């Protein structure tokens, strides 16, 4: 990402003082190598390629997009589970972009993650008490009435029975396991929680329970969320602001209300119109926009605007000049030469 854009983004962010997390020009390229003895790089998967966004205290930012758009990579970069290729991540006033693991460790209390799959993210050989108590042990945090009491309080907070302290994960259903994961996340009272597809592995009725729980916890504990999801309706429900990603870039960033009422990027428009509506009367394809083909490979993304190969509005300029993420209305940023709804 060019320096100019970075500077612009910094200047544009209105509540810079209130920002908990500021990301500028964040990129992650995974090297593709050939050869065993003479290893050489033959290409790079541009999983995330220049993201600029901020998250303010107490808000929920939704990251939405199709598989392969880089949303999970972004989540892993924010939690520093992956090393960024370039760009900057400022969390609570500290530049954490390239902190060494030892220096990062104290900050891990403040940034926690909720994982997608409640089956593989809990150690089957550990009891619930050990799982939820692990953060206290690892961070050597002393609690007023001992770890067991703290864990039981957490279990109660997420709606589980504190007496289940000594049970193992396999004794719980999917929704309950996800609650165990959330209890573990909350143990050290983090400031920022990155939730990667927190409800997509759950049944519909259980999804709603977990979504409500996340909202209640946010009100109660003043949490800040970055929620990564592919389900547009869940993202709308839970987020204050939403960033739509396509092939490693943010194509549109706006408040949830603006984005869903007046989507401006053609990709957002297509994405929204593809969601099946639970209203049989609305059936019909009059206003439907059907994208043809698949998402191109991030190994060799299309030049300039990455969406031009599937866009029905694409013209010459889309193939030669990359549209910048520009603010078209207050708080509504779009990267498109020919935005909709203007």
């Amino acid at each position, binding site marked *: 990402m060019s320096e100019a854009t970075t500077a612009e983004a910094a200047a544009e962010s209105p509540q810079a003082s209130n920002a908990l997390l500021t990301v500028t020009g964040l990129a992650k390229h995974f090297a593709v190598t050939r050869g065993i003895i003479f290893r050489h790089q033959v290409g790079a998967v541009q999983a995330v390629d220049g993201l600029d966004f901020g998250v303010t205290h107490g808000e929920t930012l939704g990251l939405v997009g199709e598989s392969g758009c880089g949303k999970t990579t972004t989540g892993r970069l924010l939690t520093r589970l992956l090393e960024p290729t370039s760009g900057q991540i400022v969390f609570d006033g500290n530049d954490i972009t390239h902190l060494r693991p030892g220096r990062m460790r104290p900050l891990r209390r403040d940034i926690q993650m909720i994982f997608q799959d409640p089956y593989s993210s809990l150690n089957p050989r550990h009891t619930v008490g050990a799982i939820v108590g692990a953060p206290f042990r690892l961070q050597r945090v002393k609690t007023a009435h001992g770890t067991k009491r703290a864990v039981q309080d957490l279990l109660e907070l997420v709606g589980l029975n504190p007496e289940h302290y000594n049970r193992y994960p396999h004794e719980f259903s999917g929704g309950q396991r996800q609650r165990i994961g959330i209890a573990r996340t909350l143990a050290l009272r983090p400031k920022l929680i990155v939730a990667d597809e927190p409800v997509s592995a759950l049944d519909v009725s259980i999804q709603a329970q977990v979504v409500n729980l996340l909202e209640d916890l946010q009100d109660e504990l003043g949490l800040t969320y970055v929620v990564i999801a592919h389900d547009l309706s869940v993202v*709308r429900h839970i987020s204050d602001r939403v960033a739509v990603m396509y092939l490693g870039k943010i194509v549109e960033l706006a408040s949830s209300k603006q984005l869903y009422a007046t989507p401006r990027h053609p990709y957002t428009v*297509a994405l929204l119109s*593809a969601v*099946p509506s639970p209203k049989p009367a609305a059936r019909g394809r009059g206003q439907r926009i059907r994208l043809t083909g698949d998402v191109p490979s991030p190994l060799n993304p299309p030049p300039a605007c990455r969406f031009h190969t599937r866009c029905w509005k694409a013209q010459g300029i889309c193939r030669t000049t990359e549209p910048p993420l520009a603010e078209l209305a207050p708080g509504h940023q779009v990267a498109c030469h020919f935005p909709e709804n203007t």
Partner: protein
Amino acid sequence: MTRAERNGAGRAMTAMARAPLRGRDPGAPDELLEVRNLHIHFPTDDGLVKAVDGLSFRVDRGHTLGIVGESGSGKSVTSLGILGLHEGTNALISGEIWLDGEELVGTTPARIRQLRGDKVAMIFQDPLSSLHPYYSVGDQIIEAYRIHNDVSRKAARRHAIERLDRVGIPQAAMRVDSYPHQLSGGMRQRAMIAMALSCDPELLIADEPTTALDVTVQAQILDLISDLQAEFGSAVIIITHDLGVVAELADDVLVMYAGKAVEYGSADDIFGRPEHPYTWGLLGSMPRLDRERAERLMPIRGTPPSLINVPSGCAFRPRCAYADLTGGRSTDEVPPLRRTAPGHLSACHLPVGERRGIWAEKIEPNL
């Protein structure tokens, strides 16, 4: 209850279910599949798993039935039962499955094998694990086609290319030699559909056909299924947990809970005037894009029951917000699936008038 009694009850129930549902005579020429009082139980060390427990429905030619429910409600077990795929397991199957006038429960495996792929075909959820990784997609389609049709390999290959082209795979003549891993998720699902359609089946069962796909690709596949249905006039059963997908495709909807049908009616009934508290719960649980953002979702409390220890009486009772209004009947009696309006059936102890009141006053305004 003996089997004969059960069947008798099942017949009475289906007769009620079907006569008013589409306003046609039972056994009308359009009828393709009729399932009557189907039970599929699995004996295990922990007890008897009643995966499907007295299910009745019908599908007509050219129509689409959507079966909705959460995991463990028996949707997939039902579809595998229709295809005779419980053969060789310890499943206990009773009841009747009539396909085009032929009873499938108790027929020989050889006969089922003739029908499977030819008259009934299935699209599975995960195309990567249901396509064979060692064979090209073309080979797999050719194999299916040649089992049921006496044609040369060359002709079968031409047929495979034609079908791949029909389901929207670009450069089908080249793609016919691709292996599953060389195709994207959407393309793989198209190849699965091409294979399922290779013998022009009269009944197509799609078990969560789009769950593994992205939303834009999902829209393409749903369009494809409904186009192909219009073209081939086949009946479709679509099994999913996604109410949006059902609303998009289905003419009739069957809502399942713990192996039983709790509500059955036209798509307009189920989405516009649902009468079962579980259906309300499903609708209240999903955030919707077509309405104002709800302040809060209305989830169903608790979790789905174990199929070994299904609650007595109404299986939904422990999670139902209105169970107390039945005066204890829901603990003792299993509510039968009763007709409440032409073509609309639901299984609940509450008087239907009361339920309509609850829907109009408490549920619909808060969705």
